[in-house]
């Protein structure tokens, strides 16, 4: 019976020990290698005291070792917490303390830099993933099977939080497997598949790349992050690596269409293209389909809190030239139920606008250490016919159901926006900027952009007699925020427009910025 993510690796190793599990540039691990390396990491973690239920941070660039580390953590019933290796030290230190991490896995170089910069009071135990000596002394035998159950946490993914600090989305084995099993069946993954691993491990798109691929006995092909800056190199990589299933945010696919010279690449191996995280403008999707007409295309939808909960299989009619409606996010995945609820808490009729609610085993356990915030998102089910207490997850996304039974995404209930597929709470950026001594008032707005969904812009009023430059403020943000949350532009003003209630009038600022 499979109810823990680590079992996916154990089972595929039994069936495909010699097949490649992970490829990183010229290096690779077979299933046998990956299983063995993750066993060694598991023993090392046990040696520093990690046991079932503990949190273990992964502070490491995407690599063969990082994949093995994930399975090492899971094999002893602990939860992994993937950290953005490029995030500011302050943010890393916050997450370490916030989820009371028991151990941190990293490379010698990153660990030294972190310890030097953080001066953290309670540094967790460290396990180095690139230290051959201590690895060699750790046993390669499987650790004893963890006495974990499917409700236990498998990982915590930190996302932008509106109060100024990130919040940790807790995902159980059961929730993750609900999605992984669905995806495995839906996309018919096979041992011959070579699946891209484009998203960073702290981003929930990576869950498909890692676990659906390993479940199938396929090969995860790690995409070097530097390639995303150069679409020509990325397109060449997809062709050379004979990727069969690609999964990324739409803005990467758009950059391939616009600047990747796709016509010159042999992309015949690509059989399925999946995208999620933001709206894919039809005009770029149409061009992509022209370049890669033989592939199947799916739009996947779901916030980190629910995993992927709806999906849409692209049909030729969606690309017809007279179409002006956004691409649908489709309907609920297997073993998942969705419904649309209005402001008074009632289910609406098809065609009416409301918030999308998700019911099923795929939803999160809550936000780490934030019971009140959790309570606003995980709420009792509004469907009266259900017996007992059933908890559902509010997505915060406004949708409308079409006559075909598919959902159309319309926008957010709150201040969260997407940029390059990342979710960003504008309030979090504002909170950080307000700490700057030269700033009197400010507003952070999202300006719609065709290629990256939104550009983040800050409007700043300085205190009388004070000045500060754009790059100084960006540097100030970079001490607390990851790169994708730093405002792309900062505009200095004498004052900001106010609403009748005295709040900054963001609607008019946004209107101005779009002109």
């Amino acid at each position, binding site marked *: 019976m499979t109810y823990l993510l680590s079992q996916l690796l154990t089972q595929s190793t039994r069936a495909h020990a010699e097949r490649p599990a992970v490829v990183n540039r010229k290096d690779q691990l077979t299933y046998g290698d990956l299983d063995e390396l993750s066993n060694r990491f598991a023993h090392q973690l046990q040696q520093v005291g990690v046991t079932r239920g503990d949190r273990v941070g992964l502070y490491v660039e995407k690599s063969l070792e990082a994949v093995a580390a994930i399975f090492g953590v899971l094999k002893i019933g602990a939860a992994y917490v993937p950290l953005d290796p490029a995030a500011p030290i302050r943010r890393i230190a916050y997450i370490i303390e916030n989820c009371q991490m028991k151990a941190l896995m990293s490379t010698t170089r990153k660990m030294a830099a972190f310890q030097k910069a953080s001066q953290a009071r309670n540094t967790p135990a460290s396990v180095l993933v690139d230290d051959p000596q201590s690895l060699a002394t750790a046993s390669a035998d499987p650790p004893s099977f963890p006495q974990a159950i499917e409700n236990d946490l498998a990982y915590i993914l930190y996302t932008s939080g509106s109060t100024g600090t990130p919040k940790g989305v807790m995902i159980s084995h059961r929730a993750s497997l609900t999605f992984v099993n669905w995806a495995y069946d839906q996309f018919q993954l096979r041992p011959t598949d070579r699946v891209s691993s484009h998203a960073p491990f702290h981003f929930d798109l990576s869950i498909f790349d890692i676990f659906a691929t390993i479940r199938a006995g396929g090969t995860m092909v790690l995409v070097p*992050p530097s390639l*995303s*800056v150069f679409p020509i190199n990325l397109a060449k990589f997809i062709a050379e690596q004979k990727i069969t299933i690609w999964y990324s945010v739409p803005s990467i696919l758009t950059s391939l269409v616009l600047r990747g010279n796709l016509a010159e690449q042999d992309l015949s191996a690509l059989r399925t293209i999946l995208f999620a995280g933001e709206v894919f403008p039809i005009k770029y999707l149409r061009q992509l389909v022209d370049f890669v007409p033989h592939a199947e295309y799916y739009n996947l939808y779901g916030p980190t809190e629910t995993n992927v909960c709806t999906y849409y299989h692209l049909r030729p009619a969606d690309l017809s030239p007279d179409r002006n409606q956004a691409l649908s996010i489709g309907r609920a995945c297997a073993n998942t139920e969705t419904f649309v609820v209005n402001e008074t808490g009632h289910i609406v009729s098809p065609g009416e606008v409301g918030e999308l609610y998700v019911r099923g085993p795929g939803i999160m356990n809550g936000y780490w250490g934030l019971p009140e915030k959790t309570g606003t998102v995980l709420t009792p089910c509004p469907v009266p016919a259900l017996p007992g207490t059933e908890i559902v997850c509010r997505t915060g996304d406004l949708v409308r159901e079409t006559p075909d039974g598919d959902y159309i995404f319309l926008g957010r209930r709150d201040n969260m926006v997407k940029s390059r597929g990342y979710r960003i709470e504008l309030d979090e950026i504002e909170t950080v900027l307000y700490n700057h001594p030269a700033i009197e008032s400010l507003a952070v707005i999202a300006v719609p952009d065709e290629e990256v969904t939104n550009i983040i812009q800050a409007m700043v009023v300085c205190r009388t007699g004070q000045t500060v430059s754009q*790059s*100084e403020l960006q540097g100030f943000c*970079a*001490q607390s925020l990851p790169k994708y949350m730093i405002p792309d532009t900062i505009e200095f003003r004498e004052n900001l427009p106010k609403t009748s209630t005295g709040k900054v009038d963001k609607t008019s600022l946004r209107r101005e910025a779009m002109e």
Partner: protein
Amino acid sequence: MTQTTYTAANISRIIKNYIIQEFMYDRVATDLTIDTLLIEEGIIDSMGIFRLITFLEEQFGFTIKPEEVVLESFETITAITGLVKTHLT
């Protein structure tokens, strides 16, 4: 515009100064050498590359073709200097 003669050394210096000023706000500028891996170290990302290209085009007065925007030409300050030199000769 007056014709300026650039040596490899002053091309590199101009590029380095620009990168420090525009992209190094979150790190120690002295860490930057002509062989620092700009992309791999995350100093220049997908938005930054457009700004850098615009700067090079305006500063040195030529146009960078889309097919020239490849990793090999932008990996380090040395590589970018090489790209600029092929356009100036």
